[in-house]
């Protein structure tokens, strides 16, 4: 080092010396400072920079891990979402089919019940008509009977009053004639 300084000092131009002198450079001090700086740098590199870098690397690794996990979770989430959508669609399809089947069954049942109700109603109407017809016939027969009784009673009364002795004889002779015809 001293040789170098000596070499620089020994330069013929002397311009370097001039500059150094202008800026106040003290070569021994400068060299000592450089050496000190190098030592500091080494120490810093050894005991501060390396651990920090290690921590940073670990943090970076952790972050990368987190990012990977997040990506994985995201992918799984998307997969789950897709699965959910698929299941929902499937359920909707099934529900639609079940509803359609239920509608069809309900329609069939409704039709069946309607037919049954119509049949029962027709039977009731038929029975009612028959009953009404029977009642009508019965009433007619009753009326006919009542009228018949009245007619017969009236005829008997009037005939009893109107028949003369000649009529009686004539009627008796008719019977006698029928007896003679039988003989």
């Amino acid at each position, binding site marked *: 080092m001293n040789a170098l300084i000596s070499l620089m000092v020994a330069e013929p131009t002397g311009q370097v010396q001039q500059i150094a002198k202008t800026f106040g450079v003290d070569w021994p001090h400068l060299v000592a400072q450089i050496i000190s700086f190098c030592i500091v740098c080494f120490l810093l590199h050894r005991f501060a920079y390396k651990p920090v870098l290690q921590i940073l690397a670990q943090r970076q690794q952790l972050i990368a891990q987190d990012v990977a996990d997040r990506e994985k979770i995201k992918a799984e989430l998307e997969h789950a979402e897709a699965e959910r959508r698929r299941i929902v669609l499937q359920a909707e399809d099934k529900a639609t089919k079940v509803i359609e089947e239920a509608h069809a069954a309900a329609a069939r049942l409704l039709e069946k019940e309607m037919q049954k109700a119509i049949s029962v109603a027709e039977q009731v109407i038929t029975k009612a008509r028959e009953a009404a017809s029977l009642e009508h016939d019965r009433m007619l027969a009753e009326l006919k009977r009542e009228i018949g009784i009245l007619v*017969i009673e009236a005829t008997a009364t009037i005939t009893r009053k109107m028949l003369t002795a000649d009529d009686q004889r004539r*009627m*008796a002779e008719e019977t*006698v004639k029928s007896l003679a015809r039988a003989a």
Partner: protein
Amino acid sequence: MPATLAQVRRVTKRLFRWCVVNDRLEEKRARAVIQRVVNAKRRGYVAVLSEFKRLLAIESVKHTAIIDSAVPLQIDLQTRISDGLERLYGQGIRARFVQNPDLIGGIRIRVSSDVYDGTVRSRLAALAASFGIRSA
């Protein structure tokens, strides 16, 4: 004398046949039969008399004509009816005239199961039947 019902009927029928001459019941013979059975008083004579009475009643019905009329019939008409009955059923027929105002008019002659009905009541009954009335 008979002991069973069949014997009673057989004996009574024989006695009754003896009373019938020319398809007519001889009243004298019937009286004689009854008198002899009563006098003899043999076993079962009451049953025989009962059966004999039943046969006489049947014979009487067969030879009796009942003439129902609403009003009393004139003698000439009664004679005509009796003559007609004798022509139809023979000499032994007897006519019994009954007045029945319920007949309203006409006459009805009944001989055993034969009926000649010319009464107003029978015509009303026919009319009632057409109305569905069972009895007028």
